[in-house]
């Protein structure tokens, strides 16, 4: 790679950075003010690409293209405002992170709606009128549209900066980022402010999407691709920092361009294809940045948010009635194979549901009582699954040994990653866990000789006597029940109380001699190990395991299950996982547009039970108890 080639790739990187910056800036603004982790931000970007395509092709010419970009940005802003007013505003008082569930449902709905409106085919927009050619730079041809993008990024950054520094709305936004309760107390209309911020964020996403139509087709896969990149940029730059987002976008785009530019390099007989690194480059950058600077490059320490949600009730050990109910449930589950004689699919689904329950419960262990929101729990599921599968593949290990190894490998991974993760908190912790999960995923994906690459490991079947459905179901049930009970045991041991003390009041916990970081680190490791069991069972239940099974979407599924059930209750994850797994299975069978339907149902549940399904029930009952007591 010559020096000129290097410089030229840097220019390519700058134009890519502008695209990243628009989405990331919007996401960052929304989070800064409303504390909502908006998973649907990529969907807003995707809508932007589609609307801009339609306007550009229907109207045509320069008006259609350039006017379309402006119109798109405004339309997407309107959609954003509508989402805030109709949906999010109703659930601001829900427990932290709960809004994530609503935005997740929106991702499902928006994707299906886009498919319904625009059809399945990729739509490549026209080239930008006036900027179709290229000019000679450093002996190479650089498209004029790329040059335009290189400048439009910093320009929007400058405009945003002005808006935040000089206008009243900007000042209010900055104030709300610092302390939104105080802003409210001073008489500012918070509802208007939140709607405005959400619309502004959506506008930036729509603008980012619209600007891309001259470079890439509008496709239905955009939403998830973009949201992943956007999160990374926001976190690397520092949550809520717009300049940070630009800086991070530039760094990540440049690292990728450099990897591509290097291509295949020989190190004395040892060949490395750097272009393959682009798979994981941004996550490596994110992990490195978060370890060195826990609040991102230009971020500041997160101010503690006084929660607007109702205070959480302390956990209480099970009453005799609970124990009996639990026992009845267990008996029912043990008897399931009897019912299944006439309907064997019950067991197939039962195994999947039980694995989901174990997965969700282990995540809840650190999310709820631990207060550590892991966005990368799939890593430990994957380590368990691959640990078991690889033992079988390479050492022909018996099933018992492979299953025993699953939690061990997951434990090792969780100890390693947890050590770094517990040093952070809040959304930074969440993103570091996500980065680690992506690194595990990429290692598995890329290390083809060991893991079978994208195809994964095949032929992992349970051995006798578990090689038929019934016995394997019992094995799964036994391990799932043991796992759930073990986690419960931990929670009501002094260890569990120490963990919750550390979550609720780290300072006081330290003051009475608890090593909060150490307690949380161990909790992280325990959750990882139990999750590993679920992974091991999964590999044997399916007969194969591949990287896709342990990707981001599984981590998100875990979050959805926990939040759906109710993060503040111990039975929440069990109910959440069961409901989600069964609903998904049922929806997939009943309609072509199953994702929209699933999303719609989740939205209804979100609105009906703003503290999760179990949380909602508990509240209902305790309210009835108070009224009946008052009456007597």
């Amino acid at each position, binding site marked *: *790679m010559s020096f000129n*080639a290097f410089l*030229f*790739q840097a220019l*390519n*990187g700058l134009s*890519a950075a502008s695209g990243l910056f628009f989405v990331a800036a919007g996401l960052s603004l929304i989070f800064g003010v409303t504390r909502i982790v908006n998973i649907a931000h990529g969907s807003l970007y995707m809508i932007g690409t589609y609307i801009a395509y339609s306007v550009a092709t229907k109207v045509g010419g320069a008006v259609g293209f350039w006017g379309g970009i402006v119109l798109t940005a405004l339309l997407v802003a309107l959609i954003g405002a509508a989402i805030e007013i109709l949906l999010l505003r109703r659930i601001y008082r829900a427990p932290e992170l709960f809004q994530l569930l609503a935005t997740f449902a929106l991702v499902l709905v928006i994707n299906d709606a886009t*498919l319904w409106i625009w059809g*399945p*085919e*990729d739509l*490549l927009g026209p080239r930008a009128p006036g900027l179709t*050619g*290229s000019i000679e730079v450093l002996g190479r*041809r650089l*498209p004029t549209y790329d040059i335009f993008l290189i400048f439009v990024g910093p320009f929007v950054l400058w405009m945003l900066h002005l808006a935040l520094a000089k206008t009243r709305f900007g000042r209010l936004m900055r104030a709300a980022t610092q302390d939104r309760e105080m802003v409210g107390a001073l008489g500012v209309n918070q509802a208007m402010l939140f709607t405005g911020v959400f619309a502004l964020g959506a506008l930036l996403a729509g603008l980012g999407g619209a600007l891309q139509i001259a470079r*890439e*087709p509008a*496709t*239905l*896969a955009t939403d998830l*691709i973009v949201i992943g990149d956007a999160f990374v940029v926001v976190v690397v730059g520092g949550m809520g920092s717009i300049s940070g987002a630009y800086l991070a976008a530039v760094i990540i785009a440049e690292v990728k361009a450099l990897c*591509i*530019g290097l*291509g*295949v390099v020989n190190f004395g007989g040892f060949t490395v*294809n750097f*272009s*393959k690194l682009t798979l994981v480059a941004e996550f490596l950058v994110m992990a490195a940045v978060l370890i060195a600077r826990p609040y991102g490059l230009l971020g500041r320490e997160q101010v503690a948010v006084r929660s607007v949600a109702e205070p959480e009730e302390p956990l*209480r050990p099970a009453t005799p*009635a609970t124990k*009996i*109910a*639990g026992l009845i*449930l267990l008996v029912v589950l043990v008897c399931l194979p009897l019912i299944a004689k006439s309907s*064997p*699919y*019950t067991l*197939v*689904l039962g195994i*999947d549901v039980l694995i989901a329950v174990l997965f969700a419960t282990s995540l809840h262990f650190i999310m709820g009582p631990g207060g550590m929101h892991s966005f990368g729990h799939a890593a430990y599921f994957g380590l368990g699954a691959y640990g078991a599968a690889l033992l079988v593949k390479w050492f022909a290990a018996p099933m018992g040994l492979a299953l025993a190894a699953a939690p061990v490998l997951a434990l090792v991974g969780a100890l390693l990653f947890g050590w770094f993760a517990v040093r952070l908190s809040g959304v930074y912790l969440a993103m570091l866990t996500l980065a680690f999960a992506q690194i595990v995923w990429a290692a598995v994906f890329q290390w*083809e000789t060991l893991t079978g*690459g*994208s195809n*994964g490991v*095949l032929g992992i*079947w349970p051995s006798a006597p578990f090689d038929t459905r019934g016995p394997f179901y019992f094995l799964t049930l036994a391990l799932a029940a043991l796992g759930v009970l073990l986690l419960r045991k931990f929670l009501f041991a002094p260890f569990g109380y120490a963990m919750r003390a550390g979550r609720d009041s780290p300072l006081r916990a330290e003051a009475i001699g608890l090593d909060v970081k150490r307690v949380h680190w161990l909790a992280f490791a325990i959750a990882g190990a139990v999750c590993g069991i679920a992974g091991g069972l999964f590999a044997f239940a*399916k*007969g*194969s395991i*591949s990287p*896709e099974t342990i990707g981001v*979407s599984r981590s998100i599924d875990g979050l959805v299950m926990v939040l759906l059930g109710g993060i503040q209750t111990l*039975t929440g994850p069990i109910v959440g996982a*069961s409901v989600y797994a*069964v609903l*998904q*299975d049922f929806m997939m069978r009943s309609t072509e547009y199953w994702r929209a339907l699933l999303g719609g149902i989740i939205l209804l549940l979100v609105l009906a039970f703003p503290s999760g399904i179990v949380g909602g029930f*508990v509240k209902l*009952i305790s309210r009835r108890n108070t009224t009946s007591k008052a009456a007597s």
Partner: protein
Amino acid sequence: MMTARSLHSLAIAGTLAGALTLSFGHAARAQDTIKIGELNSYKTQTAFLDPYKKGWELAIEQINAKGGVLGKKLEVISRDDGSTPGDAVRVADELVTREGVNIIAGTFLSHIGLAVTEFAGKKKVFFLAAEPLTDKITWQNGNKYTFRLRATTYMQVAMLMPAAVAAKKKRWALVYPNFEYGQAAVATFKEMLKAQQPDVEFVTEQAPPLGKVDAGAVVQAIDDAKPDAIFNVLFGADFSKLVREGTTRGVFKDRTVVSLLSGEPEYLDPVKEEAPVGWIVTGYPWDKIKTPEYLAFLTAYQKKYNDYPRLGSIVGYVTMTSLAAGIAKAGSTDTDKLIAAFEGLKLDSPFGPFMYRASDHQATMGAYVGKIALEGGKGTMADFKYVDGATVLPSDAEVKKLRPVTE
């Protein structure tokens, strides 16, 4: 008085009971139809699978209009496979255990196809893999129960090889999506070309992640390596991006480009008037094939859907006609008889006659090889010819060595 806690636990019991009833209560229907289970990633591979579904629906309509097979109508129970191998295996299991099918067909992505292949081998279920291209389904991970319709990665590369050799280019650049399909295609390409042209040099390899190609940087890196020719395996949105950036930057000028699958309408149509003229591709020129068997298909398809067929339509159509032919030949839906019937099964398709080889269970249905041309503002193929899959597949003895011994 019940406490909140206990009701709490009852709520779970209720949920699980609900789960049971949902998956329960399924009365067995009278066996007056032959049921075929079908699963595919309809939600994530829509551009290919939407026409695919139309294709098989047309086939079923035609077969049933003629009275079905063995005096029974065919009934397809189609499912979304959730686009992950784990979900796909559960869906396949559901089709078998709940719907009672013993024939399944479908899948698109290689790793999902392989997971279902593995499932079929273990549960002794007949499986016709429709679209996944990975060689492993019929070779390294093949099994008695699995057949595959679509021309494989190996076959597609082999079809392009004569043109690649004839181009007599020394310096080749390779660009491919970073997953098994791309890796395998490039490995086969390098091996075959090196065998026929020992002085060939591979000057760069670009392996962007699937769906996320940073096209500007990638085409620039290719240009900087100064190749004489380029072998491309990118498809879908990646292909569109590559074509647009590469054309703007003049990277394809005076260079031979050999490109896998790019002549398929699914991938060629989105780039419209920017179709890269002169690229040597495998594909499907839907409006230029004039054989009577193809025209019959085309007319029926256009009449039913008022739209033109894509390659997916052909794959879907032939999947179901294959199954109908196989069942008719077997005279029953018994799994072992069906396998015996499929081994060496000969049938006609819109692309002409082909067969399912007994040695590796691979269909010999071929593909069209030609050059991309521009006609009336749309990409199409010119100078094309049909390459029969049988001519590019390794011999029975060779594939026997590739397949697992435990058969």
